[in-house]
C-alpha cells in the first residue's frame, strides 16, 4: 500500500505541510517495500494560479492509496482526486510526518469525503 503525505521536508521527522496545492513536498511511503520517496513540489508552489489541480495531477501520477494532509484539497483539486479513488485523511497539518503516520494508524485522523 502507498501512503502520500503533504510535507515541508523529505524525512519522517519533517513537518507536515497543512496546505494541499502549495505543499513543498509530497512524501510517498510504500509499506510493502518499507521505502520512503519524495517528490519536490516547489515548482507548483510558485504558480500564481491553479496550484491545487496541478498537485492533484501529480498525485494522479503517483497513484497512492491514501493521502494524509492538513485541511484537504479545494474544489477543483477534489474533482481531479475523485478520479484517483484514494482515501484522504485530514487534520495532520501541525504534526511531523511520523506523528501523522501514527495518528493515521491509530485511526484518529478524519476521513475527507470528496
Amino acid at each position, binding site marked *: 500500500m502507498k501512503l502520500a503525505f503533504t510535507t515541508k521536508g523529505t524525512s519522517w521527522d519533517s513537518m507536515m505541510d497543512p496546505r494541499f*496545492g502549495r505543499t513543498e513536498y509530497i512524501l510517498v511511503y510504500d509499506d510493502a517495500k518499507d521505502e520512503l520517496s519524495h517528490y519536490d513540489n516547489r515548482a507548483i*508552489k*510558485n504558480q*500564481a494560479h491553479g496550484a491545487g489541480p496541478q498537485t492533484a495531477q501529480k498525485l494522479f501520477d503517483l497513484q497512492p492509496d491514501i493521502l494524509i494532509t*492538513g485541511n*484537504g484539497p479545494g474544489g477543483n483539486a477534489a474533482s481531479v482526486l475523485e478520479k484517483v479513488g484514494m482515501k484522504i485523511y485530514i487534520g495532520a497539518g501541525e504534526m511531523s510526518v511520523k506523528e501523522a503516520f501514527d495518528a493515521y494508524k491509530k485511526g484518529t485522523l478524519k476521513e475527507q469525503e470528496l
Partner: protein
Amino acid sequence: MKEIVVISGKGGTGKTSIAASFSYLGGKDLVVADCDVDAADMHLLMQPDFNKTEDFYSGVLAKINPDKCTNCGACAKVCRFDAIPVINDQYIVEPLNCEGCGYCPRVCPVDAITMEDQNVGKWYISTTKVGSSMVHARLGIGAENSGKLVAQVKNEAKRIAKEDGKDIVLVDGSPGIGCPVVSSLSGSDFVVLVTEPTVSGLHDLKRVYQLVKKFNIRAGCIINKSDLNLKVSSEIENFLKEEKIMHISNLPYDETFTKAMINGQTIIEYNDSNLIPILIESWDKIKKIILNN
C-alpha cells in the same frame, strides 16, 4: 500557533474594519497578515512602518528583442490575446494584454522572444502602531492578487509568529471565492465570516461557506449593520443555525464605524463608540475557542 482568517464573500460588509479592530485588541500578541491584496486597506488603520520591502514576481510576460526580430509577424498571428501590435514598424508585446502563455517564443523563427518573470508589486514586513508585526503587499496597476501571493504573505506571517513565539496569526482575507480565497483558507484554524443583512450579503455568505466547509474549518459569523434589515438578519441567523456556524455577535448600524475609518482609526480607538464592548466580547470569544483547542 493558530491562524484566524476573516472573510466576507461580499465586499463592503466591514470585514477590514472588524479585522483591524481585532488586531488592535490583540496588540503585540499576534502577527497580522493582510491578504486582501487587490484592495489592501488594513495599513490605513494599522499604520505599519513599511520597514522591510521585497519585490514580488508572479507569472511571465513575453518580450521581443528588437535587434533579433525580423518583423515576420509569426508571433502576432498566433497570439490569442491580440497582445502583439505593430508600433513604429516594430512588433511589440503589449504587457497589459499578454497572458504569458508562451506560444509566441515557440513559433519565433529567430528566437527573438523570451518569457521574463514579471515584477507585479511589492510585499512588506512592518511594525504596526500597536507594536505588532504585519505582513502586507501592494500590487502594481493591472496586476491581480493570486494564490501564490497570499500563500507567501501568510507563510511569512507564520514564520514571524513562530520565531517571536506569538500564539495567533490574524489574516484579513480576500473577497469572493476564487484562488486567493482558497489560498487564504488553506492551513487555517478558524474563520470569521463578516456579513450584512442584504440579499447579496446572505447569498455571498452561503457561497463562501461552501468553501469553508470543504476545508473542514470551524467558523463563526458576525452580522454587521444587523438592525438595518431585521428580516434578512433573521434569515442569516437561521442559516447559521442550520449549518451549526457559531453566531459570534450582531453589530448594530453605528456611525462611529465610518467615522473611525475616516480618522484612520480602528473602531476600538474611536471614543465612546457603542460597538467597542461588542467587539471586545467578540474577540474574547474567538480567542477562547481557538486557544482552548
